[in-house]
């Protein structure tokens, strides 16, 4: 078995690395854009407008209460139908699905972050004459962001693992590499062990970095 693993690494090393690159790229895109969507949706959910509030709630609930794989299928088939002119690649459709998914989870992270900022902060800012939006951008969001930074990083770790579902559509991520290599070599356990180790090393390292960051933030208080 060790000999097989060595052989696979020598022959398909680049494939595994490419797969890792695609996995990380997918995770980065979903979390980065998901963050922006999440912040907007969180503000909508906390706004006084009933309409904005309902739209945001509907979005987060639908995403959070249906399986990710279903959402991937949905976007995979729906987006090219909806926008045929754009000739969207498989990768784009999957990335969009992941962005929407992570946006919903990020909005909950941001919402709890915003709510964790003491009301007195808003009152003090407003009593000085700051407008509602100045208070949000200068006082509430900077503190909320600091509170949610660790949770955001955890979401990144979670998304990194969830991208493995994208392999259903052969988008070239780490899990896709497993499927192709396993198909070519008729080996199952060995390539599985290799990508398992890669997933583990990457997410374990990220978790440790997050823990360090969390300690740094705490001591900065």
């Amino acid at each position, binding site marked *: 078995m060790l000999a097989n693993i060595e052989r696979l690494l020598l022959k398909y090393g680049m494939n595994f690395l490419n797969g890792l690159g695609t996995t990380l790229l997918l995770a980065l895109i979903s979390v980065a854009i998901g963050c922006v969507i999440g912040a907007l949706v969180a503000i909508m959910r906390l706004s006084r407008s009933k309409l904005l509030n309902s739209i945001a709630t509907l979005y987060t609930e639908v995403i959070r209460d249906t399986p990710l794989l279903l959402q991937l299928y949905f976007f995979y088939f729906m987006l090219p139908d909806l926008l045929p002119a754009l000739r969207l690649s498989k990768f784009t459709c999957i990335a969009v699905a992941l962005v929407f998914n992570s946006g919903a989870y990020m909005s909950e992270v941001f919402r709890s972050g915003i709510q964790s900022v003491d009301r007195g902060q808003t009152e003090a800012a407003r009593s000085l004459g*700051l407008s509602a939006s100045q208070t949000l951008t200068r006082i509430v969001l900077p503190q909320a962001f600091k509170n949610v930074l660790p949770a955001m990083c955890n979401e990144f770790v979670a998304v990194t693992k969830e991208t493995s579902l994208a392999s259903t559509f052969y988008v070239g991520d780490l899990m896709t590499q497993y499927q192709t290599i396993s198909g070519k070599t008729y080996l199952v356990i060995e390539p599985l062990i290799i990508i398992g180790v890669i997933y583990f090393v990457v997410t374990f390292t990220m978790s440790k970095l997050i823990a360090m960051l969390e300690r740094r933030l705490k001591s*900065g208080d």
Partner: protein
Amino acid sequence: MTEPFDFSKAPELIRVEDLHKDFGSLKVLAGITETIHKGEVVSLIGPSGSGKSTFLRCLNRLEEPTSGHIWFDGVDIADKSVDIDKHREKMGMVFQHFNIFPHMSVIDNITLAPTLLGKQTKDEARAKAEALLSRVGLLDKRDIKPTRLSGGQKQRLAIVRALAMEPEVMLFDEPTSALDPEMVGEVLDVIKTLAKNNMTCVIVTHEMGFAREVCNRVLFMDGGVICEQGAPEQLFDHPQHPRTQDFLSKVL
């Protein structure tokens, strides 16, 4: 001894007319009519739940009044169409829990509002903030994060943060209630100095000794109305209303 100044002849600063505030079915303010004159130092006392903090917070509309009028600078700021932000600039407020901005340095806490609202340039605001900080003995703390300050230091910072906007009136909401006993004095001293320099102050407080010493007028609130009011000597030594007598017998 000089004759005490008659503030009822001073210009009006805030005139409150028939102010009501309900929280659901609970009537917290049940019709308050009161005038605060320029230069007056007024304290609001009364049992908890009597509506004194709510009354204070209605003055700059941190609480939205249910009905009534609040005339300030000739404008009814209880009117919802009024741009309240403009008027809040002229009403400093100090809170029980300080509400210092923890993500900014001490001096940035002070300069934020004046520069953001275009009242002062960065340099002006900084110079003014340093002068204010030295007045309350915090100049050496100017560049640190306020999370490292003691409660008393935070409250002194909160006071000068409000003063940096050059308000016409300062509203204090139980400014010493969250402080360790040994820090109460340093904060009260700052308020006393303000009062001596003719800053109009409205102070919700449980410090009866302080109210007696510093204030020109004491308002006793109970059940959402002002039951009795008068000069401190009169109200503390010869309370007329049975509820005032009852309250004072418990706290003095």
